[in-house]
Every structure is written in C-alpha cells, then in structure tokens.
C-alpha cells in the first residue's frame, strides 16, 4: 500500500460497495415488521418470507448479473411459466419421465436465452425491446399451445407422473429446523447467490461482465468476447427462470398458462434495490439477493400486519425510488472524477 492511501477508513470502504444500501434497507424492514407484528420473527414466519424471497431471488440474482452486463431481460418472468408448462405437458400429457421433461425444459430455456442474446447482439437493438418481444411471444405461446394440447389453460396432475418422487425431492422438498418446515427453494437460492457472487468478483468471466456493461467498446478493444459474454448472461437468466419454474411445478403440481406475468419487473426492482445500475457496469449479486429479501419480507410482513395488500405497491414504489437515489449518491462517491 502506498502511504497516500492512508486512512481510507472502514466507512469509506464500505460505502463504495453496491450492496450497502440494500443491507441497511433489509435491516430496517426486518426490525419494523418484527416490532409491529407477532409472527414475523418466529421460525414459521421466517420460513414463509425466506421462501417468498428465494423464488424471487433466484432469478433476481441472475437478472442482476445481466444488468451489470448492461442488458435487460423482460422475458424472465414468463419464462418461469413456460418452463413449468414444458415440464408439465411432457410428463402428464405425453407420459414422459419427469427427469427427461425437466432436462428438455432446461434445453428449451437455454435456447430461448441464447436467441434473446443473439438477437440483441445481432440487431444492436436495446434488449428492453427485444426481450419485450420475447416476453409477449412466450406469453402467447404459453396460452396458445396449452389450450391446443389440453383444451384448458392449465396443466395439472404432476404427482402421478413417472419419476415425480425423485425430482420432487431435489426441487420441492422441505427440511425441518426447530420443528418448522423450510422449503428447499431457500437452499437453491443460497447456492445461486454463492455461485453468482463468486463468478462475478472472482473469475475472468465476472471481470468481463463488469467490462461489457461498463463500456462495451473498451472491452471489445482489449479482446473481451463481447457477444459470447452477453449471450451467456441471457442464457443465465433463462436458466434461473427454469429453476424457479421447475421448483413451482413440482411443488404445486399445477401450472396456469398465464402465470409469471409481472415477475420480470420484480426481478429488475430487486436488482436495482440491490445496487445495480440501470446503465450497467455496477452492482452485486449479494445486493440483488438482499433486494429480493426486502421484497419477500415486506410482502409477507404486510400480510402478518393484516394490512390491505394495496400498501405493498406503495411500499415498493417508495423503496425503489429511495434505492435509486441512494445508489446514485454512492456511485458518485465511488467514481469521484477529478481532472
């Protein structure tokens, strides 16, 4: 260390981390609902809001990586329904083994993700528009194909399919702590957070994610594979959506063809609350996970407080604005430009 670095202090070093705002927010929300409700901080309460946070957070973390890479994916929400529908239709209607159906569903997700990425890179159009297109297209396919095959807009009966027990154990079982059942989705979430955080700050690929989002031409000029990096990020969000879709279909054994609409914005909101810049190049996986945690805690906390659910939207709006303002300030501190 150079002597001029000197007293940069713990607060200064913490404040440039993108997830600090979200951590403070999470603490405030937790304390608030612990005080105003009785069930919130009980083990049962924790199990409930952790599960809600987990199914949101798995995709939010992947979306955060994509946003750091400078792109959006509006199709991620509907993709959770599409993948569930593929799995459910193949195993209930065509009698496939659940494992085979799950694998085909994953391949489908990877294909759509790659197509999203390829279209964005090939056309140079904003990913907002391209994935808005795939969002609408998937929504139509979900309803159209489900109706054509089953005659209704839902697929159910997963429980009696071949291989359900094993797949269900992996994706939709529970584990018990202190006499309360926790959903295994929470463990999946932890695995996704750990993998994403490690990938982002400890690997070459993570370095490339920051670079393609921070300044794509600079990254390309020093030899970063721009197109490959971004396409892989789109495939990442699709894979995360597949994981949540699979968890959902195996847990609830039924899927509605119009499920998942609106989730895409929740993922983006969680990522932004967690410190991701809308313009790319800055953010963290742990921050996005904290954003999802705030989301889950507030949604369930409002239920425990027996308030009308309308207040959740107000809370969300205020939270989002506050997060953007705080993050903006933090980022300016992080890159105080002196000339």
């Amino acid at each position, binding site marked *: 260390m150079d002597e001029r670095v000197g007293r940069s202090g713990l607060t200064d070093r913490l404040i440039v981390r993108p997830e600090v705002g979200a951590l403070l927010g999470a603490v405030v929300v937790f304390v608030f609902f612990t005080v105003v409700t009785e069930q919130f901080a009980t083990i049962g309460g924790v199990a409930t809001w952790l599960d809600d946070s987990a199914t949101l957070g798995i995709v939010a973390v992947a979306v955060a990586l994509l946003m750091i890479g400078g792109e959006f994916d509006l199709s991620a929400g509907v993709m959770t329904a599409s993948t569930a529908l593929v799995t459910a239709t193949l195993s209930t209607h065509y009698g496939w083994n659940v494992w085979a159906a799950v694998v085909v569903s994953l391949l489908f997700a990877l294909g759509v993700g790659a197509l999203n990425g390829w279209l964005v890179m090939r056309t140079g159009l904003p990913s907002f528009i391209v994935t808005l297109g795939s969002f609408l297209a998937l929504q139509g396919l979900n309803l159209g194909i489900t109706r054509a095959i089953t005659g209704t807009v839902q697929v159910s009966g997963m429980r009696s399919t071949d291989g359900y027990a094993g797949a269900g154990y992996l994706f939709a079982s529970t584990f018990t702590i202190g006499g309360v059942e926790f959903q295994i989705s929470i463990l999946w979430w932890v695995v996704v957070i750990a993998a994403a955080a490690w990938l982002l700050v400890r*690997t*070459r690929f993570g370095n490339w994610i920051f670079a393609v989002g921070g300044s794509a031409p600079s990254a390309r000029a*020093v030899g970063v594979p721009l197109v490959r990096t971004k396409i892989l990020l789109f495939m990442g969000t699709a894979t995360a959506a597949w994981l949540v879709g699979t968890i959902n279909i195996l847990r609830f054994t039924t899927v509605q063809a119009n499920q998942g609409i609106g989730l895409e914005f929740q993922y983006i909101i969680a990522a932004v609350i967690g410190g991701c810049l809308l313009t790319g190049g800055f953010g963290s996986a742990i921050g996005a996970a904290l954003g999802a945690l705030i989301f889950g805690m507030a949604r369930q906390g409002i239920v425990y407080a027996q308030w009308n659910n309308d207040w959740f939207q107000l809370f969300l709006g205020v939270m989002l604005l506050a997060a953007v303002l705080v993050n903006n300030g933090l980022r300016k501190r992080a890159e105080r*430009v002196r000339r």
Partner: protein
Amino acid sequence: MSPLIEVVDIGKTYGSVIALRDVSTVVNAGEVTCVLGDNGAGKSTLIKILAGVHQHDRGEFRVEGEPVRFSSPREALDHGIATVYQDLAVVPLMSVWRNFFLGSEPTKGFGPVRWLDRKTGRTTTRKALADMGIDLRDVEQPVGTLSGGERQCVAIARAVHFGAKVLILDEPTAALGVKQAGVVLRYVAQARDRGLGVVLITHNPHHAYPVADRFLLLKRGAPLGQYEKSEIDINELTRQMAGGAELEALEHELRAQA
C-alpha cells in the same frame, strides 16, 4: 529487417464514400510515426484498419513483412498491435488492476475450475505501472477516479506490459491540459525507448513534433505528404497542417477587409 508495420497504397470505402486512399507509410521498432490531419482526414479509418476494427479493401498491409487482414481487434492484438483509444481506453467503474488485466486476466485453480489470481493481478499492475514511472496511490480504486492523463498512462502501460510490438495511440492528448499532455507524451517516448513502434494520431503539431520520427499528413482521406523529422521543421509542419496556402489566402482576405 522489415518494418513492424508497412502499409502500401492502402484504401477503404464505406459504400460510395472513399474514406481513405493511396496511403503508404512504415512503422519501425523504436520509432514514432505520427499521423496528422484535421477532422475527417481519414486518421480514424487508418488506425481502425491497423487495429483490426475495419478491413482495408485496397492496397497491402504487412506486419513484419507478412501481408495481413485482421478480422477482429483480438487478432491485431495477437500480432502484437495494441491500440489505446482516446475516450474508450478503460472501463471507468472498474478498478485499476481489473482494467489493466482486462481480457488477459491471471487465473489459478485446478483443471477447468479457474478463478482470478487477484494478488498477482494487483502486485503485477503496481509493478508494471512503476516500471513505466507511473506512481498510483491505489490499484483498487476505480479508474474513473483517475485524471484523463493517468487513464491514458494506465492504458499505455497495459499495452507495453502485454508485449505489444506496436502501440497505436488515438488522440492521446486531445482532451488533456498542457501539463497532462506532457506527462502522456513522456510515456509515449518511454514506450518508444523500450523498442516499441508507435503510431501517434493527433491534430496538434506541437504535441507531435517533439516525440515523432516521421510525419504522415492526411487530408480528405488522401496523403498530403510524408516527411522524416530532418526534412521538416515545426513551423512548416504547422503550416501544412493548417492548410498551408489556403490559410495564407484567408489571412490576406481578412486583412483586406480590416
């Protein structure tokens, strides 16, 4: 020995627009070739061909005697040609050492599972910068917190460290103050003294003259002249740059009106 880079009657058209034609020059090891010209003279087109961003469609482009045609900047880099662009040399929000190693990150690990060797990254960056005489406070700080001149220097040090044989600098002093520009030019001279061939693009003859060995003047996509340093002095260079006779005519005109 053949020069590091040699272009012969090179040309490039975008549709019906002739961006560059009949340009020839050489870049030797340990020498600075300076490309001068006003906006729209074809400077950018020339360096984009050299850097592998665009391909020439006329003439010949040789690297160490071998005719080449690069399809990507990566390919140019693999041939030892590194380019430092004016405003996109670095990613501002990333730390100095992450920028330094971007695209060539040091890793460690077992077999296919590899992760960044952050310690090596930091110490190597600090040492490489120090070798170039660049003294930074902290390699973990975002590059955006550095001054414009320091950013250029980091990019130059990076190219030198990764074994570039030819360094292309696109307007490295354009956005800088007088003092900062001087600092950058000193590093250009240092890269030259280490035996690199340097292509310096600028529209400021006062920045070009002290460090360059050869001057290529471009105008409207065509060569206006090429001079060794011994053949031309700074006044003549400035005169040619400013349009020479045209400027004198303008001066007369303005005087007549006064």
